């Protein structure tokens, strides 16, 4: 015979399972923004986001390893050929923020950058 505590645990588990299976009311999936990197540019090089709206940056390199560094929004990642790096981002302040390659990639490396514009 089940004790009172055991019954409560079973009810809790059932409730949790039902909740997990309920499809409605989930937050919408963040928009995915694909950014490709190659010597010496990002595509796209300008991205416009809304403050407080989460997105996922998907970073891929075409030709060789690059970097993606944006200190103002706390992002730093290697960008690798034939791999996709997913970087969740919820911008918390408006402004224009520069990102740049921080893995030296040749004559033109210093020009390899872009901007994220965060609007209110």
């Amino acid at each position, binding site marked *: 015979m089940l004790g009172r505590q055991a019954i409560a645990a079973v009810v809790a588990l059932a409730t949790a399972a039902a909740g997990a299976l309920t499809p409605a009311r989930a937050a919408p999936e963040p928009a995915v923004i694909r950014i490709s990197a190659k010597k010496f540019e990002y595509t796209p090089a300008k991205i416009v986001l809304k403050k407080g709206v989460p997105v996922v940056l998907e970073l891929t390199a075409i030709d060789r*390893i690059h970097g993606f560094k944006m200190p103002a929004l706390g992002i730093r990642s290697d960008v690798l050929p034939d791999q996709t790096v997913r970087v969740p981002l919820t911008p918390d302040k408006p402004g224009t923020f520069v990102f*740049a390659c*921080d893995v*030296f990639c040749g004559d033109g490396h210093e020009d390899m950058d872009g*901007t994220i514009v965060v609007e209110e």
Partner: protein
Amino acid sequence: MMKSDLDRRDFLKLAGCGGVVFAAGLASPAYLAAAGRDFHFVQMTDTHWGFAGAPNPEARTTLPRAVAAVNALGRQPEFIMFTGDLTHTTDDPKERRRRMAEFKDIVKELRVKELRFIPGEHDASLDAGEAFKEFFGRTYYTFDHAGIHFIALDNVSDPGAKIGRAQLDWLAADLAQQSKDQPIIVLAHRPLFDLYPDWDWATADGAAALDLLMPYRHVTVFYGHIHQEHHHTTGHIAHHAATSLIFPQPAPGSQPKRTPPVAWNPAAPFKGLGFRDIANGPAPDQPAIREVPLA
């Protein structure tokens, strides 16, 4: 008299009147204990041999001009330290070696024969320092001169601007041999502190090196990379960036992006370019840094 012709006596006079000399009052007293005798060396940096472009239409003559200016110093330095980006980068390994060979031929004309080199990212980041080592030897090392312990670091052979665990362990082992009062001069290409991370003017693991250096009371860092004079302290450690010998870069944060560099001014050719003369100063706690412009 051209500034590059100033001799040691003139140099010390200038130190007293706040001319072109930066008396490192904000710096740690790194040299001081050293010597007990006049001592100076020259820092040359960011020569970018092989560069061609509008920011310096005189790129082929700038390095020879700098060599002539150093040779014209009234009192020759005891050695010359090149702090990286000796050559401008190229994807072609043969061309990289050709540029390094030409660079070496030009600096052979220096009257001072004790020359030391560390790489910049343009020399070493595309081949992990392989060509640099063929021409100039090790990428990081120590030496002692006039009572000062010099530590030359490599923060560029890793293209991600890392010193790396192995070199940090080597640094820790070297420092363990030093007294906490030992005057230490660190030479590096990139800044070891976060000067302006938006433009990647930093070293990814530079803080780890500074943590190791922090217990030592008399540490000064000389570096290049940012193509302009810049002075900063982290704790008691002073950091001094030198002007380049190719083109000046904008002041940190003065424009949205790290490029373009400062435009060449035909009315003032070579403006913003130069080298640096570093001496033990007139007083024990005042090492003296003299910026020597090419213009």
